[in-house]
C-alpha cells in the first residue's frame, strides 16, 4: 500500500469509529432533555431515576466520544499537513469555534450535570442538562460546517502562492450546503438515540425487569424515533440529495449507479455497479423516478457518469453506491419499524406485543450502520477531491510521514479501538443490567 492509501485509511478508520459515539451523544442529549423536562414537570422520582440511568450510559459514551475525537482534530495536522497548511485559515475557523463555543460549554456543564444534581436543584440541573444538549448540537454544527466547506467551498479567495484565504466569514457559516447536511445529520443522531432508548426499554419489557422504566423508554424512544425517521427522509434527506444533484452531479451519478445520461432516468433499488463495463448488473429499478426526485419532472434529463471526464469520477464507485443504498434502504426500514411500533403504542398494545418489542430491541445496531453509511456516502462521494473542485486528496497528505510510520499508528489505533469497543460494550451492558432502579 502506498502512503496515500494508508493516510486515507487512517482517517477513515479513526473517524468511522469516533462517530459511533457522538451520534448517540447528540441523539441521547435531546432525549435526556425530554426526560428531564418530564421529571421537572411531574416532580416524579421515576423520571429522575430514568435520567440518572441514561446519564450513566451517556457519560461512558461521551468519554468514548471525547477520547476518540481528539485524534480527529490532530490528524488534520499529522496526516494531512499540506491540506492544513493551505486551508487552515478557513476550516481552522470552524474547528477553533467548535472548541471555544461547544466543547467548553459541553464539558463544563456535563461535569455539573453528572456530579451536581443536589447542588444545583431541579431547575439548575435541568438547565445543565439543556446546556449539554446545546453544546453537543453546536459541536455537530461546527463539524458539519467544516465538512460542508470541503464539500462545497465558499467564501474564499486564492492567495499568490495558491493558498486558500478566507474572504467571507458569513459565507462559511451560511454555506447553502450546510443547512440540509446539518439537519440530516442531526436527525440521524436522534434516530440512533431513539432506537437505543426504545431497544433498552423493549429489553426490560421482554425480560420482565424494570418494567415501568421499560415502558417509559419505549414510549419516548418510539415517538422520537418516528418523528426523526420521517424528518430524515423529508425534508432533510431530500434537501441533501438536491445539494448533491446541483453541486456534485458526478457524485450523484455514481451514487445512483447511472453510467449513461438519460432523460427519464430510473431509480435503482438494487443492483451492482460494474465500473469496468459501465453498467449496473442485476438492476431492480423504478422507471423515471430518479428524474422526478431530482428535478420534479418525470422526463428530466439526469447526467450519467459518461457526462463527466473520468478523472473527476469518485474513485471508489461501488463503495459509494453501496453505502448510499444501504443508508437509504435502512432509513426506509426505520420509518416502517417505528410506524408499526407507534401504531401499536397508540392502540395501547405495544408493551405486551412481544414480536414488536423483539423487533425494536434487535433494531438498535442498524441506525449506527445507516449513519456510518451516510457519512461514507458523503466522504467517498467527495473524492477524488479533498476540497471539492479545489484540492485533490492526493496533494493534501503530509509529505514527510512515510507509509511505514502511518501504518504503525494505524495498527496502533486499530488495536486500541478494538479494546475500547469491548470495554464500552461491557460497561454499557453492565449499566443496563444494573438498571434505573439502582440509580
Amino acid at each position, binding site marked *: 500500500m502506498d502512503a496515500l492509501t494508508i493516510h486515507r485509511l487512517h482517517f477513515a478508520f479513526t473517524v468511522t469509529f469516533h462517530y459511533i459515539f457522538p451520534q448517540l451523544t447528540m441523539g441521547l442529549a435531546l432525549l435526556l432533555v425530554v426526560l428531564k423536562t418530564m421529571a421537572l414537570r411531574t416532580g416524579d422520582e421515576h423520571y429522575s431515576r430514568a435520567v440518572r440511568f441514561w446519564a450513566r450510559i451517556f457519560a461512558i459514551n461521551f468519554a468514548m466520544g471525547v477520547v476518540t475525537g481528539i485524534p480527529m482534530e*490532530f490528524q488534520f495536522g499529522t496526516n494531512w499537513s499540506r491540506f492544513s497548511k493551505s486551508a487552515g485559515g478557513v476550516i481552522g475557523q470552524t474547528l477553533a469555534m467548535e472548541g471555544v463555543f461547544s466543547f467548553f460549554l459541553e464539558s463544563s456543564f456535563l461535569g455539573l450535570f453528572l456530579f451536581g444534581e443536589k447542588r444545583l436543584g431541579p431547575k439548575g440541573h435541568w438547565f445543565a442538562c439543556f446546556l449539554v444538549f446545546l453544546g453537543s448540537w453546536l459541536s455537530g454544527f461546527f463539524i458539519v460546517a467544516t465538512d460542508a466547506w470541503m464539500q462545497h467551498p465558499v467564501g474564499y479567495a486564492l492567495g499568490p502562492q495558491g493558498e486558500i484565504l478566507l474572504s467571507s466569514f458569513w459565507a462559511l457559516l451560511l454555506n447553502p450546503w450546510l443547512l440540509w447536511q446539518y439537519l440530516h445529520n442531526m436527525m440521524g443522531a436522534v434516530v440512533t438515540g431513539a432506537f437505543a432508548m426504545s431497544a433498552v426499554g423493549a429489553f426490560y419489557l421482554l425480560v420482565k425487569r424494570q418494567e415501568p422504566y421499560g415502558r417509559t423508554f419505549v414510549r419516548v424512544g418510539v415517538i422520537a424515533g418516528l418523528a426523526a425517521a420521517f424528518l430524515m427522509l423529508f425534508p432533510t434527506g431530500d434537501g441533501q440529495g438536491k445539494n448533491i444533484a446541483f453541486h456534485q452531479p458526478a457524485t450523484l451519478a455514481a451514487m445512483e449507479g447511472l453510467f449513461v445520461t438519460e432523460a427519464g432516468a430510473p431509480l435503482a433499488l438494487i443492483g451492482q455497479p460494474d465500473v469496468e463495463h459501465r453498467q449496473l448488473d442485476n438492476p431492480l429499478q423504478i422507471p423515471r423516478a430518479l428524474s422526478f426526485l431530482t428535478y420534479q419532472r418525470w422526463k428530466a434529463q439526469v447526467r450519467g457518469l459518461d457526462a463527466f471526464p473520468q478523472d473527476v469520477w469518485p474513485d471508489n464507485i461501488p463503495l459509494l453506491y453501496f453505502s448510499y443504498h444501504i443508508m437509504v434502504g435502512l432509513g426506509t426500514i426505520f420509518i416502517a419499524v417505528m410506524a408499526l411500533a407507534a401504531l401499536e403504542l397508540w392502540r395501547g398494545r405495544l408493551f405486551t406485543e412481544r414480536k414488536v418489542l423483539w423487533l425494536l430491541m434487535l433494531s438498535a445496531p442498524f441506525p449506527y450502520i445507516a449513519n456510518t453509511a451516510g457519512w461514507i456516502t458523503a466522504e467517498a462521494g467527495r473524492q477524488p477531491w479533498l476540497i471539492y473542485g479545489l484540492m485533490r486528496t492526493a496533494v493534501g497528505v503530509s509529505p514527510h510521514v512515510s507509509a511505514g510510520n502511518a501504518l504503525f499508528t494505524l495498527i496502533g489505533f486499530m488495536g486500541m479501538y478494538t479494546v475500547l469497543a469491548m470495554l464500552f460494550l461491557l460497561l454499557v451492558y453492565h449499566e443496563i443490567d444494573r438498571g434505573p432502579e439502582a440509580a
Partner: protein
Amino acid sequence: MQTIWFMLVAVMIAVYVVLDGFDLGAGIVQLLVARTDGERRQVLRSIGPVWDGNEVWLLAGGGTLYFAFPALYASSFSGFYLPLMMVLWLLILRGISIEFRNHIDSLVWKPFWDAVFGGASALLAIFFGAALGNVVRGVPLDNAGEFFLPLWTNFGVGGDVGILDWYTVLVAVAAFATLLVHGALWVALKTDGALGERASGVARTGWWGVAVLTVAITWCSFRIQPRLGESFGARPWGYVFPLLAVAGLIGMRALHRAGLAPFLCSSLFIVGMLTSAAFGLYPYVLPSNLDPRAGLTVSNAAAAPYGLKVGLVWFIPGMLLTVGYFVYTYRSFAGKVPAEDEGY
C-alpha cells in the same frame, strides 16, 4: 495582529498546562499517596467534574493554533508525528481510566485502571516536557518549513536530532517533577486528613527536585538556544516572566501551609516558565536548529489578516463565556472533597 494571536495561543497553552497539569499530577500522585479505595475515589472526585473541561483547553488551543498559524500547525503536527500519536493514545488511556474505573466494583478492575491512570498521566507529563524541549531547541526545517523527526537518533542536540536527546529528556524530567508537585498541591488543597498530609509531604520533597531541575534546564536552554539570550537582552522588560516563575517557585515553598496559596504559586511558576519560553523564542514559533535565520515565525506561519481579524470578533466573547463557565464550575465544586459524596 499576529502577535496578539501568538499571545492568545500561548496563554491557552499555559492555561491548559496549569489546569490539566493538576489532573495529570493527581494521576501520578494517587499512586503514591492514596492507600485505600476510598482515598483513590477522593482523588478522582477532586478532578472528576473538571478534568474533561481542562482537557478542552488543549483541543481549543490546538484549534486556535490551527486557524491562526496553519503553517505551524501543519509543520509541527506532521513533524512530531510519532510522539503526537503516542500522546493521543495516552490521552485516550487517561480519559477512559478516569471514567471507567468506578463503574465496576471489583478487585481486578479498579487497581488496573488506577495503574493505567497513573502511568498514562506520568507519560503525558514526560511527553509534554519533551515537546517543549523540542520547540525550544528547534528542529531541522527544510525549505518548505517542514520536517520529520524520529523518536531518537544519537541523543545529541545538534544537526540530525530526534525527539529525545539529552536536553529534551532533561526538560521532560523537569516537566514530570513540576506536574507531580502541582498535582500533589492540588490533592493537598482538595482533601484533608491523612491523604492531604501525605500529598503535602510529596509536594515538599518534590519541590527540591523542581528547584534543581529548573536551574538546570534554564542554564541548558540559554546555551542551546541563543535566541533566548538575544530576546531578553534586546527587551529587558521580558525578565518579568522569569521573575514570575521564580516568585512562584519560592512561594510554593514559603507559603506551603497557607491553603490555596501553594497551588496558586505552583500555577504561577508554570505560567512563568512557559511565558518565558514563549517570550524568549518570539518572533519564532518553531526555530530551526540548523540555521538560526530559518524557522517559522509569527509572520510566515500566520493565516491571512482577514481571518485573524474576524477571529478576534468571536474569540473574545467566546473566551469570556468560557471563563464564566469555569469560574462557575470551580465555585460549584469548591472546598474539600468529602470522603463520600454523590456520584453518578
